[in-house]
């Protein structure tokens, strides 16, 4: 029974990682950059919900939608100002800019909201479900998180396969030069990718803070890094990979804490990652890169 509840908690934590990892993976697949500021967009999304629920007293649905809109706008603005001018620059230059954006968002949040922890009121309010005679307790947040994750992955996969924009994204991720020759507006495609990724970050922020209700300017950075690990775990650039990577990471973290050592939880997660990458050098579902001579 204990095992079952660890498993459920692991999947719940993993689902949050997975949604964040989706944003990472999409941006990486299409713009070929590691968007280190992704975690901080999550934090911004959470603050928007916090302010609109607590101070403006908006209904939950409206505030979640507002948060998604704000994050999409933020994502597009960041992309336009900080990343677009660097399209031709070396990859590392863009990485450093992303780190700069990350520091920027954290410090702006620090100036506006202060360093004090804000407690986040869960956006879903209902009693937890118990079964197996009270041995296993599943909270509504857990169910909503897992459900949201599944819906998002299904919707994204459908979008990528069947919409024009989605196929344009696939084309750009395969070969942006060739895609441009075929008449795809690469710049616009990348902007849309950032918009989708940031929208997902807003949802991830709401879910993260509903399940773990403590919000500070640094809330996004560690889940952001872990989601990045999850994305690599599953094979960066792959949408099902992000899902599997995220959920596995959540389960490993919880199981490691439960059965090995709660002090060494991080070492266990990262250790498993190293082993997986040594066995499968491009992640679980990553494509084997063909080397051209």
């Amino acid at each position, binding site marked *: 029974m204990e095992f079952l509840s660890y498993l459920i908690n692991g999947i719940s934590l993993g689902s949050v990682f997975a949604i964040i990892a989706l944003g990472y993976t999409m941006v990486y697949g299409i713009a070929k950059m*590691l968007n280190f500021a992704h975690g901080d967009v999550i934090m911004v999304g959470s603050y928007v919900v916090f302010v609109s629920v607590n101070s403006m007293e908006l209904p939950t649905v409206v505030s979640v939608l507002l948060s998604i809109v704000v994050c999409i706008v933020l994502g597009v603005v960041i992309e336009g100002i900080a990343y677009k*001018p660097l399209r031709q620059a070396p990859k590392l*230059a863009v990485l*450093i800019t992303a780190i700069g954006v990350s520091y*920027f968002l954290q410090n702006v949040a620090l*100036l506006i909201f202060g360093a004090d922890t804000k407690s986040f009121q869960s956006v879903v309010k209902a009693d937890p479900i118990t079964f197996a005679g009270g041995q296993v307790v599943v909270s509504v947040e857990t169910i909503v998180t897992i459900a949201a994750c599944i819906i998002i992955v299904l919707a994204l996969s459908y979008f990528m396969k069947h919409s024009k924009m989605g196929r344009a994204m696939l084309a750009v991720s395969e070969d942006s030069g060739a895609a441009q020759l075929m008449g795809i507006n690469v710049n616009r495609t990348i902007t849309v990718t950032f918009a989708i990724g940031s929208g997902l970050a807003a949802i991830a922020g709401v879910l993260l803070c509903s399940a773990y209700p403590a919000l500070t300017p640094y809330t996004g950075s560690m889940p952001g890094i872990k989601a990045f690990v999850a994305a690599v775990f599953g094979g960066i650039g792959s949408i099902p990979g992000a899902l599997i990577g995220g959920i596995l990471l959540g389960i490993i973290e919880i199981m490691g804490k439960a059965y090995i050592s709660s002090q060494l939880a991080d070492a266990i997660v990262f*250790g498993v990652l190293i082993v997986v990458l040594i066995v499968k050098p491009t992640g679980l579902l990553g494509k084997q890169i063909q080397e051209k001579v």
Partner: protein
Amino acid sequence: MNMIKSMSKTTKNNAITYAMVIIAFAVVQTMVMTGNITSLMNGLLVPLCTYVILAISLNLTVGILGELSLGHAGFMCVGAFSSSIFSQLTVDVITTGWMRFSLAIILGAIMAGLFGFLVGIPVLRLKGDYLAIVTLAFGEIVKNVINAIYVGIDEAGVHFSLQDVTSLGLSETGLVLIKGPRGITGTPKDSTFVIGVILIIITLIVILNLMNSRTGRAIMSIRDNRIAAESVGINITKYKLLAFAISAALAGVAGALYAHNLSTLTALPKNFGYNMSIMILVFVVLGGIGNIRGSIIAAVVLTLIPELLRSLNDYRMLMYAIVLIVTMICTWSPKIKELRERYSLQNWIQKKKHAKEVV
């Protein structure tokens, strides 16, 4: 005069780098001697040396070997802790400060290099971002383990525990070496500016000579085209490992310098986490990938900026972030490049010259 002319371009370039370090040292040292230096600057001298060494050594991995590493702070951490333990154990045995410290530095370098080698064997099979993430993972593991472990020593030998100091079961005379998250306290303060500069020079000699040697050219050929390098018979794994281990060992030297400048050594996310690795990477990228002199300047400038911005109070770190973004955009944006070319001083002078010639 003839000698300078006959020097090759690289030699001249390297000479400039050495000269820059030595002149900077001479100027600062005179200021220290004559007491014309603020306490802030005086306190910053050793950290500056540490960051310069870190930046140069990471440039070996990133710029010369061409692999992205996000775990450089992990190697620094290994060097810092091993050298610090050594100093604590031998503080009564070896009373000559410089000798104990040199041995500590060498030990720190060897330990970090060994870790670099061990991590490198599996890791260097990976490519690009996968390698980056594994180095990041390594750094986090080192930090996590050091934070969880308690180490003590007494006549019965070395004791380990994951619980607390009492569970080490040390005898009366036992000495606690690492106290979990409280790390190591009471490391002798052996680091000085002079030693720091000597270490920078040694690092420079190692790296610049490596770059201009047969080995260095082999490493760079791997970076530029791995398959071509392999086809001409270069042992990829050997050279990659070599570069990676040297880079790690030099990070260990920086770690030893860092550890012996502070009386408290703890593995916090701030000093040995991925944040630190990223900060070193920022030095390398901003200074120019593969450019050693650039790394030195960038490390110095970027360490000084947050300190000199102290008067800004709460806006300090925000300014730092803006500096990062603006510098990257100014350097790489095509539009700004164009603007710069149009209004650059050099062009302006050239145009004038040109105009004169036409007249």
